[in-house]
């Protein structure tokens, strides 16, 4: 009996998952992972360089925190203000533009606030607040959450007043927030990539898109190796160099779901001096 157990243990322990390989760790967002973008990009990068990339997909706030603690080699996220704080704190950098896509305002087909024909997010959010939503917020300090709070501020509405009533903070990722909105017939702000890849839409649909305020920029930053000496600088820098170079940029542009391009490379657009 015990010899048999020993054999089983040996078989389990000798599996290749514990093998060491040349690899870097990226702290990134659920939108890049769950939209399938990394699944498309990373094999191409691995083929060209022999470097395996391990992606830990979190909200932007949490991903930056993982970078701050030195638990990743680079961060690839989408909340410009938080990224600039990250660089200013000396946690990493410099920050480089990689690509953009946009946010969409999603809601039930019945559209109780009547925003479907609108082009202006300010007006739409005011209507949602006036109609008492319901509105599902990520509430998790992610890039999308930060963008949503910025949009409320631009609209001059304080949604926190509706907390617990029509404004519902789920404190979870984009997928769970969409699941909740689908179940409750609520409005929700989503990044287009996750929305396109999302399967449990029920009667949710895009009600408002195309407003310039819905622009969503992604940036990449190396974690500061002076603060965290174990950071794999050479291999991580190789990834950054690749993703902002024509090869990486073309790979981003080539990715789509159902014929629709998800992310638009814009690394060549120089960072404006602020």
């Amino acid at each position, binding site marked *: 009996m015990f010899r048999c157990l020993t054999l089983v243990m040996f078989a389990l*322990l000798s599996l290749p998952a514990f093998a060491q390989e040349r690899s870097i760790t990226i702290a990134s967002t659920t939108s890049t992972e769950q939209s399938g973008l990394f699944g498309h990009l990373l094999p191409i990068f691995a083929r060209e360089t022999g470097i395996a990339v391990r992606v830990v997909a979190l909200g932007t706030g949490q991903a930056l925190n993982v970078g701050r603690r030195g638990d990743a080699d680079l961060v690839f996220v989408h909340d410009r203000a938080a990224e600039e704080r990250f660089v200013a704190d000396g946690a990493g950098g410099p920050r480089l533009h990689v690509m953009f896509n946009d946010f969409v305002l999603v809601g039930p087909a019945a559209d109780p606030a009547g925003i479907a024909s609108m082009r202006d997010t300010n007006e739409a959010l005011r209507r949602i607040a006036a109609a008492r939503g319901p509105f599902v917020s990520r509430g998790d300090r992610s890039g999308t959450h930060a963008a949503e709070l910025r949009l409320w501020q631009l609209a001059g509405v304080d949604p926190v007043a509706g907390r617990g009533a029509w404004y519902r903070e789920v404190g979870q990722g984009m997928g769970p927030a969409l699941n909740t909105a689908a179940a409750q017939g609520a409005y929700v702000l989503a990044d287009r990539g996750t929305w396109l890849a999302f399967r*449990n839409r029920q009667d949710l649909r895009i009600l408002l898109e195309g407003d310039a305020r819905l622009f969503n920029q992604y940036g990449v930053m190396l974690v500061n190796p002076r603060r965290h000496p174990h950071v794999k600088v050479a291999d991580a820098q190789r990834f950054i160099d690749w993703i902002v170079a024509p090869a990486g940029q073309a790979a981003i542009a080539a990715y789509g779901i159902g014929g629709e391009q998800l992310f638009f490379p814009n690394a060549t657009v120089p960072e404006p001096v602020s």
Partner: protein
Amino acid sequence: MNDVNAAFAAAAGLIVDADPAVLGIVMLSLQVSVCAVAIAAVIGLSLGALLAVTRFPGRGAVVVALNALMGLPPVVCGLLVYLLLSRSGPLGQWGLLFTPSAMIFAQAVLIAPILAALTRQVLESYWEEYAEQLRSFGAGPCRAVPTLLWDGRFALLTVLLAGFGRASAEVGAVMIVGGNIEGYTRVMTTAIALETSKGDLPLALALGIVLMAIVLGVNAAAHALRGNATRWAG
């Protein structure tokens, strides 16, 4: 009901096709949970057995603490191990965060108290029965522990299965310390959580069915093993 039917169909498909990605996830799940049980067993069984045969001031408090730790929420356990293993934490130089080893570590921490508490419970009743006899042979607690562990081995198999069940079912700890990295630290439970958040509920449920089938298989194997062993022993 359509979704549930679709899930069973998808589960059957996953098993029949032996999809390599799913197979890798299944093997990693087994690997992590079996290793965690093995490590926790070394600590938990010896601690539980010692506790069963010794009497000392404050023993009651230790027993209560162990019993309470059986309810340690996986997410709290994961958070503690995360802070320990993070590069900015005390064990940061090991570089274990976001690796399968970190997941084994977290699950071992999670289930060691369960194994210790249940072992104490099981062996205490044996000890009450045998104490007189063992003492008459001049066996102190240190000699009594191996004897008790051996005599209680069939009951302890169930204890190990309880630990394995807890380890293979938890998602909170491995999600935090493993990071759910595709092809590296993604296990059954984190894959289920991921597919749920992507809204692919049938696939998520299908993975859940596969996980239950595996746990059922492990328990059936243990049951058969125990049946055989009892026959030989008898």
